[in-house]
Structures are given as structure tokens and as C-alpha cells.
């Protein structure tokens, strides 16, 4: 075999081996690219891609380009586990995702044992209470958001009774348990507790049950597509509301899918592309230009997660050391002065839970309108 043939064979083998050169830093996105919450997973992925493109164009992390791999969980915990094993075998520096709380639960132990930091999109309350020292959120857990929304129901809506419709998965159950606790503490009575399935398409019967409850407020807690279908069915059947929810109910994707049916929806959003913050507006414009659609909170989560990795690695650790990365993240605060692309000042506590400012919002004329900015819990 001649030298040129040998070089060709070697370069082909390198390409087949994954395409990343030895000098690249490997980030892996394990996320819901298809399946019932593909909306969220797709947004998160595109946020990551945007950040990776920007960072690579600016020279990478510690002068090493990011080699990003994408692994689809299909919103299925079994697939998520096999994809996680595949990711671990590739020896990544950091794993980004999953978004679906059930998938996070199914994979976190594997990543913890492999000592790989993972920045998750899952919001189920219990995820940060399971002792995983390598897990970090990119958005609030439900235990952070629910007290704020319960206060809103009591103080702004003056509601004495609430009808709840929720999705029966880890995300929905966690939200329901947290909300019920918060409502009970505020003497707000739950008059309907309607469980629905992930990926459900027909909500006619569920909305009839909500109507029969005749509550002062209707709390909708599900994933974006299901939230949109619930709102369409609710308007179709003339259910008056007011409709309240946490981030997903007011997300840009829910508003797009629900159309006019989303108007009047109120609630709490942890992150939003409509935040009255110039850096967020700049990110939204960049994202929209790159992907031709408006991001929701998951797009921001993916984007800021990559920049958090960059900041911690370059400015705090100074080398690619996974253990040191995880240790540094605990108790860390990154401000927009430290890293402009973090967009909003963000703090991680010793469990990986996140703290930021958040927002009260209402959907008006098909747009999310921020009505109040709530401070960080730690302030």
C-alpha cells in the first residue's frame, strides 16, 4: 500500500470514528429530537447549535473547537438510556439534556457514575434532591416556580378554588404535587384534579370535567403541544377560565399552536424570549435569523448551558477537567458582566438547582406580555 493510499484509509477511518479531531472538545446533546416533546427538545437543541456555532467562530473553548453530537431519545426512557451509554462510550466533556424529566431520571445515575457533568432541561422537582453531584439545571425546578404561581393565584386572581389539569408523567406529577402543597398552604381548594396522558390528542372529556368543576381558576400543567390542545378544546367548549400555568402554558410554541385560544392565559415564566432584557432580545433575534422561528424558554436554556460550560471551563477551571467543572458549578453565580451570553444573572446551589429572576406574564393578542419581574429567591 502506497503512502497516499495509507493516508486515505487513515483519514477515512478517522471520519468513520466520529468526525471529531483529537483536539476537539466533545459536547453531547442527549435530547428529545422526536417523540411527544420534540417541540421542547428541538428548541433546546437549536439553542445549543447557535451557541456552539458562535463559540467555534470565536475560536472555541480554551482554543479547542466544540465537536457537538446529537443523540435522540425519542422521548423514550429506554432509548434515552441506550443513547446515554453511547454518549458515555464517546467520552464527552459535558452532556447537555435531556429535557424530559422522565428521561433525566432514567439516565442521571449513569452519567453520575461516569462522572460526566450534565446540564439538564428537566424541571421535575425531585431531580436535584437525588444527590447527583454532576447534575445542573438550566431552568427552575417546580419547587421554585410553584410558590410564585400559588401566590399569584391568591393575590392577583383572588381565586378560592382551582381546577387542575395535568399530564401524567414525571414532569406533570412533580408539578401537581408541588402545586397541591402550595395551594393547601394558602387555603385554596382544589375542586377538580384531571389527569391526562403525555401525547394525548383529544381533551373533550377532560374539558367537560373542568367545566363541571366551575372553579375560580383553571390551572393547566402539561407539555407545550398538550397545553395548546387543551386551550383549543377549552375555548371550543366555552370554558371561561381564567387559565393559569407555569412556563409551558405561556411558551411561544404553545401560543403559536393554540392561536387565539391562548389569549388571556396568565402565569409564571422562568425564562422567556419576550423578557424585557436587551440581551434576551438580542439572543431572540439571532435565533430567529438562524432557525427562522421564535425560540421558547428551551432555546434559551440550551444556549446559556453551552456558554455556562465555556465560562466555567475558561474562567474558573482553566482546563478540561470534569470533576473540577462540577465542583466549581456548585454555588457559582455567573453574571452578564462575567459572560454576556449567559443573558441573565444565574446561580447554581449545592444541589445543582438554579436561581434567576423570573416573570409574571399574560398572553395578549397572540403575544406574551411580561407584567412583572420577580426577583431571585436568594435576594
Amino acid at each position, binding site marked *: 500500500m502506497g503512502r497516499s493510499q495509507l493516508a486515505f484509509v487513515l483519514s477515512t477511518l478517522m471520519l468513520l470514528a466520529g468526525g471529531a479531531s483529537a483536539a476537539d472538545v466533545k459536547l453531547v446533546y442527549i435530547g428529545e429530537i*422526536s417523540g411527544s416533546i420534540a417541540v421542547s427538545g428541538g428548541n433546546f437543541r437549536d439553542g445549543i447549535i447557535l451557541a456552539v456555532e458562535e463559540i467555534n467562530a470565536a475560536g472555541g473553548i480554551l482554543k479547542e473547537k466544540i465537536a457537538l453530537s446529537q443523540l435522540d431519545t425519542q422521548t423514550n426512557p429506554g432509548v434515552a438510556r441506550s443513547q446515554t451509554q453511547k454518549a458515555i462510550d464517546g467520552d464527552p466533556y459535558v452532556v447537555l439534556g435531556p429535557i424530559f424529566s422522565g428521561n433525566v431520571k432514567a439516565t442521571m445515575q449513569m452519567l453520575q457514575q461516569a462522572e460526566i457533568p450534565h446540564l439538564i432541561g428537566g424541571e421535575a422537582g425531585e431531580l436535584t434532591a437525588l444527590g447527583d453531584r454532576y447534575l445542573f439545571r438550566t431552568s427552575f425546578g417546580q419547587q421554585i416556580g410553584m410558590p410564585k404561581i400559588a401566590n399569584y393565584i391568591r393575590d392577583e386572581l383572588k381565586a378560592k378554588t382551582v381546577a387542575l389539569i395535568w399530564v401524567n408523567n414525571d414532569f406533570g406529577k412533580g408539578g401537581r404535587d408541588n402545586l397541591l402543597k402550595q395551594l393547601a398552604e394558602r387555603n385554596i381548594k382544589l375542586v377538580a384534579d384531571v389527569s391526562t396522558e403525555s*401525547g394525548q*390528542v*383529544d381533551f373533550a372529556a377532560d374539558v367537560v370535567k373542568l367545566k363541571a368543576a366551575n372553579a375560580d381558576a383553571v390551572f393547566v400543567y402539561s407539555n407545550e403541544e398538550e397545553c395548546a390542545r387543551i386551550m*383549543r378544546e377549552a*375555548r371550543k367548549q366555552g370554558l371561561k377560565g381564567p387559565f393559569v400555568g407555569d412556563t409551558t402554558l405561556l411558551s411561544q410554541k404553545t401560543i403559536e399552536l393554540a392561536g387565539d385560544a391562548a389569549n388571556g392565559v396568565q402565569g409564571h415564566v422562568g425564562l422567556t424570549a419576550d423578557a424585557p432584557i436587551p440581551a434576551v432580545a438580542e439572543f431572540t433575534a439571532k435565533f430567529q435569523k438562524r432557525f427562522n422561528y421564535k425560540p421558547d424558554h428551551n432555546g434559551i436554556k440550551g444556549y446559556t448551558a453551552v456558554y455556562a460550560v465555556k465560562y466555567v471551563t475558561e474562567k474558573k477551571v482553566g482546563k478540561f477537567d470534569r470533576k473540577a467543572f462540577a465542583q466549581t458549578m456548585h454555588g457559582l453565580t455567573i453574571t452578564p458582566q462575567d459572560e454576556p451570553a449567559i443573558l441573565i444573572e444565574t446561580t447554581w446551589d449545592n444541589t445543582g438547582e438554579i436561581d434567576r429572576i423570573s416573570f409574571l406574564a399574560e398572553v395578549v393578542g397572540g403575544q406574551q406580555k411580561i407584567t412583572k419581574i420577580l426577583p431571585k429567591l436568594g435576594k
Partner: protein
Amino acid sequence: MADILQLLVAGLATGAIYALVAIGFTLLWQTSQTINFAQGEFVMLPAFFVLIGTGYFGLSFWPAVALATVVSVVVLGLLFKRLIVDPMMRHGVLPLVIATIGLAIFFKEAVREFYGADAQPFPPVVAATEVTVFGVALALQSLVVLAISIAAVVALQLFLSGTRTGRCMQACAQNPTVARLLGIPVERMILYTFLINAALVTLAAILITPIYLAKFTNGEWLGLYAFIAAIIGGFNQVRGAIVGGLLLGVIDNFAAAYLSSQYRMAIPLLILIVVVLVRPQGLLGRIEERTV
């Protein structure tokens, strides 16, 4: 009482859509012994034809619906018969069934590849408002879906029994050999059933997609429900498919409201098992005997 009436109307509206899709199953079975396991994807696809019409060609909704109907009739009627059914039919029912399962996967993945895995908004036929009937507020959309579906079924029945072509199609369904001896162009009549099926699934798509949202997975549920409806009602009778569809829609809604939303999918399957055990030909079906 108001709850029951609301559930009944919502169930009938959804059931009427299942019935439209189930009728397609029975028509194809009667005339060509075709079981189309891509029938659910046949309902999913026209919604995306409409979205392509509005999104890519800038058409308003109703012209896009007209375009989607034409495209559906050509692709899901004519081309489906010519390219899939005719070549496979010579090899028996089973290879055709497997081919339609493959076609379902192809359609699903093609839509996902072309349009993405996200759901897409789809405009309703009428605005979301309610009307009061006997003091009970009912969703206008449900009533309109029900009315359009009934009108479509009545029109189909009138066509089948009141026109020469319709009677020829029935003759082909009952006995193609005798129909051929009588000079009826059997192949053309079979083609008509495929075209009618394509029109029915397009109508079902226009009615169901505002509720489900346009998504590549929509066909999974719809195909399964319509297939169950056709078996419950009687796979060889159009009126059986209608009864099966309506029954399934109503039972599904009442089960979700009063039994369990978690097990709502199990209820139709339980009914299917009972019907197959007690009355295998379906509620309104007739027993088919074959010479062996």
C-alpha cells in the same frame, strides 16, 4: 345532564370522523380485498398538503383545501392503487398488508423529515364558539364536524344507491365475476373506491386536525381507532363502519370522563375483543363464507 349531553356531542363528533376513516377501510375491503394499514397516515397527510398550500404557495385556507383534495385524490387514490395495490395484489392479501404498513412508516418519516417532528397549528373550519341547545352550551365546532360528517355519509349512500356508477360499484363489491360478465368495468369501479377513500380521508383530515394539531404521528391513533371501528361495526358493511365509529367516539369520551383517562385506550380494545368473541362479523356485518 348538561355534562352528559356535552360528552355525547363531543363523542359523536369525534366518532363521526372515525366513521369517515372506517368507511374507507370497508370500501377498499369490499371492492378489492385491500386492508390499508396506512389509512391513519392517509388522514395525517392531507393536513400537511393544506399547510404546504398555505405556507409554501401562499394560498388562503379554502383554496389550499381544494388543492390538498386534488393532490390527495391523485396520490392517495390513483397512485396508491397503481403503484402499491395493483402490483402487490397478485401476491395475495398478506404482502399487500405488509406493503401498506411499510407505506405508513414511509409517509410518517417523510413528513417528519420534510416538516419536522413538531406539531403545527391548523385552522378550524369554524370559529371556537358555543351555541345553546335546550339550555345546554355545546361547542359549535363539534356540531359542525358532526353535520359535515353526516352530510358526507348521506351523500356517499345516495351516490352508491342512487346512481348507476354507485350501483355498479356495489355489484363489483358483491360479486366481481358476475359484474364483469354483465359488462361492468370492474377495474374502473375499484379505482373509484380508491378515489372516494382518498376524498373521505381528506375530509377527515380537515375536520380532525384542528383538534389534534398537524403532526406526523397523528395517523397512529386515527388508523387504529378507525380499524377497530370498522371491525366492531362490521368490516364488510358501510353502515357498520358508521355505527362502529360513532359508538367508539362516544364510548371513548364517556370512558375518559367517568372511568379513567389512563385506560381510555384499553376500552375500545376490550370492546373489540368482546365483539370478535361474541359476534365475529361485527355488529352490522354479514358472515362471509369462502370455498376452500
